[in-house]
């Protein structure tokens, strides 16, 4: 007899609301219905009420994990509309930020994946090392997330020469860590048994669902916007695009681990270039956006982010279409999770790395006096103190 197991909209494991209805026959998942929309904020409409510089900050808030992906694709779209080229230094800074983000995002996913299959050691180690990447991003931009580095025509902040050795050291220290994770996944017979052949997305299905990013590359589709349609500094640095062919959760994990090596490679090449380039030349002035249309893309940690902008010559876009990679990747669960057992469903659904917003604010309240223990200003002060401390000690 067919039964329905609801997962969500509020689920103890997942931070963001999504609703999966699993139709099961005994232990086996025979069909799945995916409902989204619990987190719809109307950003596309909101974007048409803001001027072009404000939109950069708005789209940065679409996602808390890959917060730089949307501004990256957005500025690419506006610059495509304008047909302008930005200074070399800005290009390399953009790529550095993009790759640092990929590092911390992949580490975050690796931790979550470990947590989902009950391998909490990976979870804690992975998130421990993710902190180092977030700290470096804080040193560069002042923020662990929402770096606010991008603007149409360039970047908002330079990466000064003094902090480049810190970033290089973080990258060097991360290589043995990624080695360790590679060993933990590749050499562990339990992980092999748990992940191999689970949640398989065949190449045919991957093409039909038009999936992107690591989800596509684990199914044998060799695509990567950074290489195929180069933007920022990606056309000028050397890197490989790992591709695997089984389409299961194991391959998706391995792809992400291998990509971390490539990200580190790209960052180091960018830093070498930044050392040689004179500081300060990081933007071109943009005064006027003419009527027209522009398309920008960025290879986010989860795959291609797509932005389309239409301008009528005013200071606000008349239409702004945004497509995040999870939009196509989550839909592919319809084939990947069917035919599996219920116990495999959680890791299969998580294997596309659906985008959970990690920027939740907490309020600590004293139960006796009902007053906030930490006010907004206290939190800001704490954050500033921490930034100072990191700058001194790293």
């Amino acid at each position, binding site marked *: 007899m067919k039964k329905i197991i609801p997962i969500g909209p509020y689920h103890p494991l997942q931070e963001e609301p999504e609703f999966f209805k699993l139709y099961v026959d005994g232990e086996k998942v025979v069909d799945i219905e995916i409902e989204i*929309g619990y987190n719809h904020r109307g950003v596309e409409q909101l974007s048409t009420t803001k001027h072009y510089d404000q939109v950069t900050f708005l789209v940065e808030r679409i996602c808390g994990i890959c917060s730089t992906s949307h501004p990256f694709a957005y500025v690419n779209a506006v610059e*495509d509309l304008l047909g302008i080229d930005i200074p070399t230094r800005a290009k390399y800074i953009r790529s550095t930020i993009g790759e640092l983000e990929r590092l911390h995002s992949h580490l975050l996913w690796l931790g979550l994946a470990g947590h989902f299959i009950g391998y909490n050691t990976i979870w804690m180690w992975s998130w421990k090392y993710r902190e180092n990447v977030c700290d470096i991003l804080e040193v560069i931009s002042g923020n662990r997330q929402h770096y606010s580095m991008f603007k149409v025509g360039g970047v908002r902040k330079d990466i000064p020469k003094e902090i480049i050795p810190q970033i290089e050291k973080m990258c060097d220290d991360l290589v043995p860590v990624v080695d360790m994770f590679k060993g933990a996944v590749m050499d562990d017979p339990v992980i092999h048994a748990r992940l191999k052949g689970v949640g398989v997305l065949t190449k045919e299905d991957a093409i039909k669902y*038009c999936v992107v990013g690591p989800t596509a590359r684990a199914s044998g589709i060799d*695509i990567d916007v950074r290489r195929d*349609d180069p933007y920022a500094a990606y056309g000028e640095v050397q890197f490989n695009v790992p591709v695997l062919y089984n389409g299961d959760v194991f391959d998706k994990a391995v792809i992400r681990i291998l990509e971390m090596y490539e990200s580190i490679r790209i960052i180091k090449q960018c830093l070498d270039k930044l050392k040689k380039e004179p500081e300060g030349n990081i933007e071109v002035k943009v005064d006027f956006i003419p009527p027209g249309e522009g398309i920008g893309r960025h290879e986010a940690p989860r795959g*291609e982010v797509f932005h*389309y902008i239409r301008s009528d010559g005013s200071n606000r876009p008349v239409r702004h279409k945004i497509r995040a990679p999870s939009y196509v990747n989550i839909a592919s669960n319809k084939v990947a999770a069917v035919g599996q057992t219920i116990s495999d469903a959680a890791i299969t659904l998580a294997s596309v790395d659906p985008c959970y917003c990690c920027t939740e604010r907490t309020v600590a309240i004293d139960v006796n006096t009902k007053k906030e223990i930490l006010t907004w200003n206290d939190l800001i002060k704490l954050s500033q103190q921490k930034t100072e401390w990191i700058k001194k000690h790293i």
Partner: protein
Amino acid sequence: MNMKEKIIDEVKNKLKDKIVDFFRKNDKRYYIEINKQNIIECVKVLFEDFGFRFSTATGIDCENNIEILYHFSYDKTGEIVSLKVKLDKNQPEIESLTKVFSAAEWIEREIWEMVGVNFIGHPNLKHLLLPEDWPEGKYPLREDVI
């Protein structure tokens, strides 16, 4: 002739008289306007014959009509070809692409609820992002929405 010019030329040759308007923005971005009755045929040429990947579609409420742009990416050389169709504002409807590829399912549901375009032959045309009890006929991305 390099590879980059080649694919767009091949597309142009194949679609030939179906092209209403052709616009080259730059080396990587092309916009091709077609009539709505040719949509399935043109999409099949791009997706099946040439191996383009469907990125997404944009529905836009313009002054006199409703435009849909189907963005296709050619990943071998990095071009984006956007097929543009213009629909009558009084009765906006077009053939669904779900029979060609599954990736069209969600975006067509979104354009239906946001801009109010009816996709003929869509297997499951219901709300995607908006709640089930959203008032009928109110399309948030239409200019005249109250």
